[in-house]
């Protein structure tokens, strides 16, 4: 009983929300590329660039606003490289993703060592982090109010973004265009929408969110830059998108679920239990869901046996 209480208390939930935030942010970005039918595995690299730029600018200017802007701009810049090769120059999009990730990991370390002459991690009092705040009204609710207290401002921004992304994708012409290009590019082209331009824009939007997610990692979750600090969150974000059925709200729920799973595993670790199995669950669940979805599809179109993957 004690153990269970230790695992599943409000504190775990709060920790879960914080762990979920970067996954959610990147997931919201990747959602746009997914809706445009682009398999974006380059989010990892885009986040790293965002995380590093945030620290760099925060260190030199002491301004969290400039740091955030820099993270977003550099995230978009990384996305532009990814889009340039993946969309415009017709690299295999997966390969372009692998390359941008490789570039992200290596080049941020290169810059870290060239500029700051440190290895591993950079933490310094000059690095300014995001301010912490309580969410108005909700935080004063009894008991669950705890969930809305003391988070970094970006946490609230991230969850607000779910709403905005939903509006953007389902209520604006641009969102409609992204979805139509993803589903049937030829049909979209037939009414004068340029599929490649829309794809590129979707990639840039994903860069925006990944940059922000990176800034969260380096200036909210911690106040430092660590080599390869994204550590697979770009892929978990991808898993969250698939797990959430490709919708903003679904992605949010999946990100929260994965976040709580990790929070629980961290607790387990402190209690001496192996945490790996809990850490595995996001991946396993997503693979499982993907197989189920495809299996159901296959059963539905059982007759069309001649069709090849």
């Amino acid at each position: 009983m004690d153990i269970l209480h230790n695992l599943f208390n409000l504190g775990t939930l709060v920790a879960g929300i914080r762990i979920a935030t970067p996954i959610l942010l990147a997931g919201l970005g990747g959602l746009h590329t997914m809706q445009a039918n682009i398999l974006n595995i380059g989010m990892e690299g885009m986040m790293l660039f965002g995380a590093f730029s945030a620290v760099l600018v925060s260190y030199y200017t002491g301004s969290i606003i400039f740091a955030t802007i820099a993270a977003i701009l550099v995230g978009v810049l990384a996305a532009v490289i990814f889009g340039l090769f993946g969309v415009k120059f017709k690299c295999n999009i997966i390969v372009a993703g692998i390359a941008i990730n490789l570039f992200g990991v290596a080049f941020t370390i290169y810059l870290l060592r060239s500029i700051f002459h440190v290895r591993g991690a950079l933490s310094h009092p000059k690095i300014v982090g995001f301010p912490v705040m309580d969410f108005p009204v909700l935080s004063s609710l009894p008991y669950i109010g705890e969930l809305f207290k003391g988070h970094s401002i970006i946490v609230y921004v991230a969850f607000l973004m779910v709403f905005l992304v939903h509006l953007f994708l389902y209520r604006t012409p641009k969102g409609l265009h992204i979805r139509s290009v993803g589903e049937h590019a030829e049909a979209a082209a037939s009414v004068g929408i340029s599929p490649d331009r829309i794809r590129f824009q979707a990639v840039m939007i994903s860069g925006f969110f990944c940059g922000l997610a990176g800034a969260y990692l380096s200036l909210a979750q911690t106040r430092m830059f660590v080599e390869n600090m994204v550590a697979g969150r770009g892929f978990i974000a991808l898993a969250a998108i698939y797990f959430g059925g490709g919708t903003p709200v679904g992605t949010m729920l999946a990100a929260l679920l994965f976040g709580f799973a990790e929070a629980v595993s961290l607790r387990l670790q402190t209690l001496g239990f192996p945490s790996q199995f809990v850490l595995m669950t996001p991946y396993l669940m997503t693979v499982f869901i993907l197989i189920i979805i495809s299996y159901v599809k296959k059963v539905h179109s059982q007759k069309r046996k001649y069709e090849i993957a």
Partner: protein
Amino acid sequence: MKRLSQIFGCNLLRPMLAIGIAMLIGTFIILLSNQDPLFAYSKMFKGAFGGFSRITESIERSIPIVLTGLATAVAFRTGVFNAGVEGSLYLGAFAAFIVGHYVVAPSIIHVPLTLAVAALVGAAWAFIPGYTKAMYKVDETVTTILLNYVAILFTAYLVAIPFKDMTAGSQQTPLILDTAHLYRFLPPSRVHIGIFIAIFLAIFLYWLFRRTIWGYNFNMTGMNPHYANYIGINVERTMINSMLISGAIGGIAGAVQIMGILHRFIDQFSPGYGFEGITVSLLARNHPLGILAAGFFYGALQTGATYMDRTTEVPKELITSLVAIIIFFVTAEGLFTYTKQNGAFRKKLENIPGVRKLLQEGVDRNGHST
């Protein structure tokens, strides 16, 4: 030159050009950080090739890369994007530890047995995404990437709890038996007979692709699955077979690293050999002998970079960044213009009803299929 490009089955011009562009960009970056690019590059070259110990280190570093490159290429040839060699590598490596540590046998049996078990485990792991791709069209790129983490975390658990070497501080297993070691034939270097396994497998795959039914089926399924299906090839089974071979070689890659270099399983022992394999396979355009060359090139780059890092003010990560740039430029189909023939052929195709859509799908394959 002509002859060389025939052997490797690909045009060498584009990789050369890509390397040139990357070096140029690297020069700029080094200049921007106030260092001497010529000095850095020369140190890197010296680190990779300057003398016996440097060359052997390059070779040693390239053995697992060649193997993961070959593993990747088998799947790529069949049109299956297996990004999961890393997972097979970890599980194969752990299987190698189990057999190497617990089975008592003379070397002549112990070594092949260990490799065989590792290959089986790697293949079994790759079977999951292979089967679901072939039968249910589950996107194999996504599943293999996600399953990598499962494999890495699973072995992390094994090495953290049940198989941990209690005498060691870090997460690692006890040593495997001497009989399961791969012989180091160039002392004092650590170059081991795994290199012959890599060379053998490269030649074997070269032969397989050119001279066997399986190879033919792999190639055709990868290039035009509609054609493969029409002439009576079982496309689904072919995809699964190719994933099994890919996974088996991935497992062997992990085992070779354990049996030849580490002699125990260490948590997170791979610096991303699986992904390096993808790079190498792309550079060599999935050609087995090309992968031997590209794998050695990659290994040499890494050891050269480490040496450069030690002897100059330029961090070694610069070189990995340049590799990323090389990948971009090598695979950018749209950047280098199509040959005339290609363009004309495509046009011819587009005039045939129904084909346009197929070509479109080909482009969309770049994205993903839902």
